[in-house]
């Protein structure tokens, strides 16, 4: 009998936008979101990023340091973006004095080339699926490294909010394996036509 009453109270509460009776909240499963929401991120732990480098066991030469590897990897990605999309040239060129149309014409090609690099070497997906500017729920137990809260969070999750940016996650990185003995600092060699 009390449950029937509670159900009616909830029904009208929801219908007229009032607060739900406290008894109802206790009966509802804790994680049931009160508003249209998105499922928790499909992958609670970031997928391990594949390292395309050869296994260390296959190489008995002295290994360069991890820091050196990180630096080489970053420089190799820049070299790829420069080679395919002329990204470094684009960023290094002062834009003053060029019309938007000139910049736009070049940007299309830079965009196409850099995008090709992303498509070939990375698989990207939004961290939080769903339309931006829509109301979403931040579930209990969310990872603050995946979802950045903007503004003050009151109480305990779930939180409700507006999705401003869906974020990006690299699902799979197929970065080139790098040969030793190549100076990665040269991200674009000088070109001399003979």
């Amino acid at each position: 009998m009390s449950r029937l009453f509670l159900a009616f109270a909830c029904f009208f509460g929801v219908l007229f936008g009032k607060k739900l009776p406290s008894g109802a909240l206790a009966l509802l499963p804790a994680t049931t979101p009160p508003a249209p929401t998105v499922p928790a991120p499909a992958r609670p732990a970031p997928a391990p990023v594949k390292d395309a480098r050869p296994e260390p066991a296959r190489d008995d030469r002295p290994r360069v340091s991890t820091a050196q590897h990180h630096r080489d990897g970053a420089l190799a990605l820049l070299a790829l973006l420069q080679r395919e999309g002329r990204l470094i040239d684009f960023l290094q060129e002062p834009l003053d004095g060029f019309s938007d149309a000139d910049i736009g014409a070049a940007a299309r090609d830079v965009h196409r080339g850099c995008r090709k690099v992303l498509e070939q070497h990375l698989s990207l997906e939004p961290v939080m699926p769903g339309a931006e500017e829509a109301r979403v729920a931040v579930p209990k137990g969310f990872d603050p490294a995946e979802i950045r809260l903007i503004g003050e969070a009151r109480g305990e999750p779930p939180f409700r909010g507006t999705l401003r940016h869906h974020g990006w996650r690299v699902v799979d990185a197929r970065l080139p394996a790098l040969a030793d003995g190549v100076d990665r600092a040269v991200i674009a060699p000088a070109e001399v036509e003979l």
Partner: protein
Amino acid sequence: MTTLGIDLGTTNSALAAADEAMPAHAVPIAQVIGPGEVAERPTLPSFLLLPGELEVPAAQLQLPWSGPMRYAVGEFARERGAELPHRLVASAKSWLCNPAIDRTAQVLPFRGAQRELERDMADGERVSPVNASARYLAHLRAAWDDAHPDEPASEQDVLVTVPASFDPVARELTAVAAREAGFDRVTLLEEPQAAFYAYLAARGDAWRRELAPGDVVLVCDIGGGTTDFSLIEIADDAGNLVVERIAVGDHILLGGDNMDLALAALVGRDLGRPLDALQQRALVHTCRRAKELLLGGAAPDVLPIAILGRGSRLIGGTLKAEVRRAQAEALLIDGFFPEVEAGARAAQRRAGGLRELGLPYAHDPAVTRHLAEFVARFGRMPSHVLFNGGVMKGPALAARVVGQLRAWAGRDVRVLAGADPDLAVALGAAHYGQVRRGHGIRIRGGTARAYYVGIESAMPAIPGFAPPIKALCVAPQGLEEGSTVELPDDELGLVVGEPQVFRFFAAAARPDGAGPVTGEAGALVDADADGMVELDPVEKLVAADADHAAGQLVPIRLEAHVTEVGTLELWCVARDGRGRWKLEYSVRERA
């Protein structure tokens, strides 16, 4: 047991695998993509770069399974090779079937007639068309072995595809290249058949509802540099559907690259400034993409084209132009695929005059005229068409081809939906490897043509007249792998100790029965009959031994054998049983 399918293409090669557990699937190929960078790509560009140490250091070309390398194949070879054209081998496959050169001689990178004179002065490594092909295949093998150390490719059945139009010499050389690359269990498969197997694999049993006895399928394969047509017939054999390859067209050196160059020439005029070699190349790249966009679905009316500045000043040096869709359609569809009558014939290059030694590019750019000629020559109208090759991804071009076929046939012609045109041939080859083990339907084909050796007629010598040549059929069309044909005893003889050279001919049977082909081994026909094509000669030097004295005439009969690999062998068998000699294909330059 895994079977590997290899599409050894003119501009791109692909690898696929199949086993009992996993149907045919494409295998990505690790390759050098930048200086010292190795990554997987869906295909392996068929380019071989042979740089000097000052051009590309060996350390930049090493692979995960190799030390520093003096050459590269694949994406980086193609891209860096554009800047070093004198070090780049391209279109090795077209050279493999070009009888104008010795295909086992080190002639690539090809430097043209003028540069041939400087051959001895020019430094740098050169390779033969066979060796270049072997290096592409060896790369595929090494990439596979690196990723699958428990299933070495040399122990798997490997299907390597060749154009249906490849003659016995080009097939033999492809098999040689595969052995040189370290594949021990190789079988050759024709590309259009592989494309059809890919269709069968993709459709499962549904193909039995799409095709019925009496249907004729045109396999229309237009790649970057080549065009090939084949006809496949569906027939009824005691209640079972059987598939038979009934006609094979010529290998036409005409393809998507020609279209890209045409569009680049059109756009280049509007850029208002002469381009350097690399900008020209960037323009062709851009035009390839523009072609795909403008001939694709939902094409924009106008497409902006920009060629970025060459130096580090990118925006300041950018050249701009635009292509209108109507312009592109007029140039590409009406230029390369004009509407023609069923009786149209491709224009032939006029004989005579001096021509630079090189690849025998098609003279007539109209694909539809080549197609009309093919369909008319074999006298069978296709009821269905299966498209293959990257160019036919453009719906506008496919629609034009279908429209033409419908107009010529006066009835509906349906399009069969196949696999991804870039990978279909490799996928179909891997699938066929499984089919061969007894599951699924097999295309009946055998040799694509009938083969003949020239026999000089015995007649009194007349000054000024060469004795007429008769062609003796040694291998009828449709001879299946593993079968042997023994010719009836003829008055043939080999002279011991003297090189024997036989002229060698081929002709394709026409379904309407016209033409020189009678289909019988041992038949004698005129060597200059219409439809008879002369190939490289076959030859043999039989050395004197205990049984045979120099100068002795040994009576022989001929035997033709199609090997399990798919190559054709001709044998001379001594009639007294004391000797058997295999005739070798002569790949020397023809005068």
